[in-house]
């Protein structure tokens, strides 16, 4: 019989198939759809086709907006939100609205077109994480912004339009509803139990081991108890840190190691599936707290959201997280 599982943070329900779950081979995409090829505006030598860089890693002393970089961050050429202007919140009868202020940036993770994030060398992977940190800290100075969302779309089915590896950042004048729900859920749990819900998850998953995929001294990767999607993976710090930007600099290497390892395992097990990952971290007005614990959530795009999910907010997951963790754990 299927099992209904409740996410302990936001109270979201998931229907988990408890019969033999779908194995990784069930999800292999018959014909890989390649993101459009040909001229790539993110490649070296095409710096003039992007807006000027706001951050870059250039270990060879090359000049900004020229080749020679190993990572670049540029504003989105056609952004969803506009950086210029003051925030103007208004009411329209009973409705609320504001002008579309925000920052939309693209992190070009490598100069090498076609090399996925999972295959970057460790230093380059760590550079990506540092770029996230530096951009968040810079945008935090802007008083209009409440939250910076970092996300990656890998593969056409996950929303990537170019196969040049990149992630994106959107700075928002409001804290997203999902983040608010996580903050409130975590705070409620803390008020009731006097413990961080994520710290409890870390503790229990390390003891239980059925959903533990891999760990190192500073981080662990798990298939969450109420996974919304087959092979959903969370990467969490072992110690309590409420914000991504507050972790000690020396553990970025450790994060790069486990993150790259997890992406490689997913890539091998599911033959390079499309996926999305998002950084979940405390909003700017509450960076340091005892109840929220930053983490990355990686969700392979293996199932479609349809009427039931939209109407109910429930998810249906055909692979129990215990089985997903076993598959991923066995990948060397």
């Amino acid at each position, binding site marked *: 019989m299927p099992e209904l599982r409740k996410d302990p943070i936001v109270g979201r329900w998931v229907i988990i198939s408890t019969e033999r779950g779908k194995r990784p081979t069930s999800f292999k995409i018959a014909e890989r759809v390649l993101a459009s090829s040909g*001229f790539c505006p993110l490649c070296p030598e095409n710096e003039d*086709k992007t807006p000027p860089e706001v951050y870059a890693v250039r270990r060879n002393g090359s000049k900004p907006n020229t080749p020679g970089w190993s990572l670049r961050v540029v504003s989105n050429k056609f952004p969803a939100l506009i950086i210029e202007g003051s925030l103007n919140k208004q009411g329209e009868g009973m409705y609320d609205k504001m002008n579309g202020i925000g920052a939309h940036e693209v992190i070009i993770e490598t100069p090498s077109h076609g090399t996925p994030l999972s295959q970057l060398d460790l230093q380059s992977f760590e550079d990506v994480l540092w770029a996230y940190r530096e951009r968040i800290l810079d945008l935090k100075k802007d008083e209009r912004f409440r939250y910076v969302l970092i996300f990656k779309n890998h593969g056409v089915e996950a929303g990537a339009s*170019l196969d040049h590896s990149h992630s994106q950042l959107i700075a928002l004048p409001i804290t997203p509803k999902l983040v608010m729900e996580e903050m409130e859920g975590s705070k409620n749990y803390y008020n009731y139990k006097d413990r961080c819900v994520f710290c409890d998850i870390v503790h229990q998953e390390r003891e239980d081991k059925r959903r533990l995929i891999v760990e190192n001294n500073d981080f662990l990767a798990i298939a969450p108890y109420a996974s919304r999607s087959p092979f959903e993976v969370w990467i969490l710090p072992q110690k309590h840190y409420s914000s991504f930007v507050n972790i000690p600099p020396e553990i970025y290497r450790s994060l790069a190691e486990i993150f790259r390892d997890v992406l490689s395992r997913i890539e091998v097990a599911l033959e390079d599936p499309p996926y999305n990952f998002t950084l979940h971290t405390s909003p700017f007005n509450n960076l340091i707290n005892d109840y929220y614990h930053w983490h990355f959530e990686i969700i392979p795009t293996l199932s479609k959201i349809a009427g039931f999910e939209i109407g109910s907010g429930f998810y249906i997951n055909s692979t129990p997280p215990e089985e997903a963790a076993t598959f991923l754990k066995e990948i060397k």
Partner: protein
Amino acid sequence: MKKILVADDEEGIRILYREELEEEGYEVKVAANGKEALELLDSFVPDLVILDIKMPDISGIEVLKQIRVKFRNLPVILSSAYPEYQQDLSTWASDAYIVKSSNLENLKSTIKKILAG
């Protein structure tokens, strides 16, 4: 006289753009689809191209990529009724992205700005 190539599968748009841009003093050639636009570019090198994105044979984005291989710096404006295509980073190979409107003032000022630059 500056030359502009307009590629759009909607005849009404081709007529409107041609009339309005000729009034502005440009020489305008039109193509009804992506293939025709690429063929025209073999014999006619414009100062600027306006490309519709959603065309039945080759999409405007694919045409843009092929243009970039041959003409790295030829100014291209993508013009679409669908603002969501802006999220496709392939559009960055263009010089501007215009959401179609019956009022062509934005298009005209974008053309002027690009050609002056």
